[in-house]
């Protein structure tokens, strides 16, 4: 089985990712000829079906792009539409949006750390199998995840596709007394989140580094979540309105997700490692301290160690949620008036998986005349393929089943959300 000069490896249906994809590796004369991430998630044509809809509808409609990060879609959509209508929400609404978003970061990151990715490092097929040997660990993860979901339920009405978000703010602002019990639970959960960082920092990580340009938002004085502009490790700096001047998407035959790259540059990365590398100084003191103790430096360029960054961001999201609950003053009114207005608006926020861009063009009656959505996974897809080519090259001596598992793990490093990007994995290595 091993040391064949030509082979083809195909993972038919990638597991522990959100959505459907496959991976195909072709090896010729002992060298990796081609790696393809085949995204066969059926297209749902959101950008087309939004045309002719009311400007008040995109937060609810685009939430349905992804059941794992609906708040990200709601927040980018609200921001873009408010921009088009030339209104800005006040600080209290902004703070409540950030708190809701912290809930989604906790839920999504903990789902990925405990249920999707940690089993790879410890050699289990699933978290449920892992629970047979490490029930206490899995229960710790489930309790953290539940807290993230409960934040979304209290503020958003439900955890998946929250109903309380609207253009201009919220339908109803929770009373301070509704948030207080969450604060008490967050304080207790902080220890579990710190233990999570220590736990994942002890995993064995392959020696692997990339040199991709990394793109993330930046927010004055805070770690970026729901507002800010964009910066990159290559010196780019631009606002949401210039996103399409810097990022182009193109269709590739093997994917229903469009591939993005930077204009006059190359493929690039968004997500936790990019956010951390560009913004680690803005983390809370405790998140910075646990990151340092876990061995994270100023940059993090080993994608396998992304699980540590994600765990650090959970600590941050808990600290931030505590700060926001502590200073919470219910917005009154819960939403500002947003009269329809002809124009174009842009929105960017940091979804758990990275930068999520929305653009809407509205007519004077407030109907959407065009929409564009660029999710994080389609931005990362070219870089993931690039990493896989490098990664597979150093591991060709492995038998197919072992190589397949390690490739799957390498893909899961990026927590790809395929339902978002199709707008993943069937694994094949073709050693032809």
């Amino acid at each position, binding site marked *: 089985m091993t040391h064949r000069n030509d082979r083809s490896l195909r993972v038919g249906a990638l597991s522990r990712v959100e959505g459907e994809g496959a991976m195909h590796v072709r090896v010729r004369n002992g060298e990796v000829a081609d790696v393809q991430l085949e995204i066969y998630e*059926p297209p*749902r044509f959101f950008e087309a079906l939004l045309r002719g809809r009311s400007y008040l509808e995109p937060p609810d409609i685009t939430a349905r792009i992804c*059941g794992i990060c609906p708040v990200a879609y709601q927040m980018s959509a609200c921001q873009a539409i408010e921009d088009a209508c030339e209104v800005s929400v006040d600080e209290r609404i902004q703070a409540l949006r950030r708190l809701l978003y912290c809930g989604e970061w906790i839920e999504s990151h903990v789902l990925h750390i405990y249920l999707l990715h940690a089993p790879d490092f410890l050699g289990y097929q699933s978290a449920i199998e892992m629970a047979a040997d490490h029930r206490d660990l899995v229960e710790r993860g489930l309790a953290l995840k539940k807290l993230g*979901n409960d934040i979304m339920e209290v503020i958003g*009405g439900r955890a998946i596709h929250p109903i309380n978000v609207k253009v201009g703010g919220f339908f109803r602002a929770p009373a301070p007394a509704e948030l207080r019990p969450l604060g008490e639970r967050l304080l207790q959960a902080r220890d579990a989140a710190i233990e999570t960082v220590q736990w994942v920092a002890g995993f064995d990580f392959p020696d692997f580094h990339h040199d991709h340009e990394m793109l993330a938002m930046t927010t004055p004085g805070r770690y970026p979540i729901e507002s800010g502009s964009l910066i990159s490790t290559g010196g780019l700096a631009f606002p949401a309105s210039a996103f399409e001047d810097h990022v182009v998407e193109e*269709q590739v035959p093997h994917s229903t997700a*469009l591939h993005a790259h930077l204009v006059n540059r190359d493929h690039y990365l968004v997500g936790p490692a990019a956010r951390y590398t560009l913004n680690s100084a803005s983390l809370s003191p405790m998140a910075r301290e646990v990151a340092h103790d876990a061995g994270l430096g100023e940059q993090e360029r080993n994608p396998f160690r992304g699980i540590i960054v994600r765990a650090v961001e959970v600590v941050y999201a808990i600290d931030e949620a505590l700060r926001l609950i502590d200073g919470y003053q219910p917005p009154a009114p819960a939403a500002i008036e947003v009269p329809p207005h002809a124009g174009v608006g842009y929105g960017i926020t940091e979804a758990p998986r990275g930068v999520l861009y929305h653009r809407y063009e509205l007519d004077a009656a407030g109907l959407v005349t065009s929409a564009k959505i660029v999710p994080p996974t389609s931005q990362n897809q070219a870089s993931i393929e690039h990493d896989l080519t490098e990664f597979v090259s150093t591991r060709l001596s492995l038998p197919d089943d072992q190589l397949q598992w390690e490739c799957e793990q390498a893909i899961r490093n990026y927590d790809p959300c395929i339902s978002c990007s199709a707008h993943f994995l069937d694994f094949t290595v073709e050693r032809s």
Partner: protein
Amino acid sequence: MPRPKLAVWKFTSCDGCQLTLLDCEDELLGLAGQVEIAHFLEASRAVSPGPYDISLVEGSVSTPDEAERIRHIREVSRTLVVIGACATSGGIQALRNFADVAEFRSIVYATPHHVRTLARSTPISAHVPVDFELRGCPIDKHQLLEVRTAFLVGREPNIPRHSVCFECKARGATCVMAADGIPCLGPVTQAGCGAICPAFRRGCFGCFGPVDSPADAAVNVAALADRLRAMGMSEDDIVRVFRTFNAAAPAFADATGGVR
């Protein structure tokens, strides 16, 4: 006695309904003891071959491959339960059923012919016999647990078929339509969510689809549309309010002039 084998399948969807299973944080490990999770790609690499005792299917059928695949899954499943608005009515992606899919495709993709898709997004029941339909966009966790329990012990799931209004009253929420003049689809929408929206001073927007009584739904949808008109909603707004996550469910589709 071997544990029943559970399989979870994804079709065209957002993953949110199968995520609901992983969101049962307090019950997940217990459930894993009651059933063998034989196929659940979002959660596990391990796959064991069919037949399966219970298959949960998320998503609609929107590609030629999916139309093939659901027939195979039906053949290897003793009980087939479909979960969520995509699987029970075609989902938000069924908005293509009211438009020209070729045009939709060319708006999103530069070389549309690479993208294989069907002209319509359809519920699972349009392709194979279905043993139970659980509504919602997304489904409700407690209803999912009830369906699991019912099938494990071999009884009918106790899932109400009345409207959201019943849940709203049971919850003690004030009627947003009567008190605040807020348009609400609660009178024609099937219960199950717990009347979340009215509790947040928002009108129901129909995530659980029309009440499961075709005759009642048709009459009440028409009456509600008249009421919305009287409240000042435009014809276009009325069409849009019924054309969301359950747009292609017959009672909602008929109210908006039917599919293309």
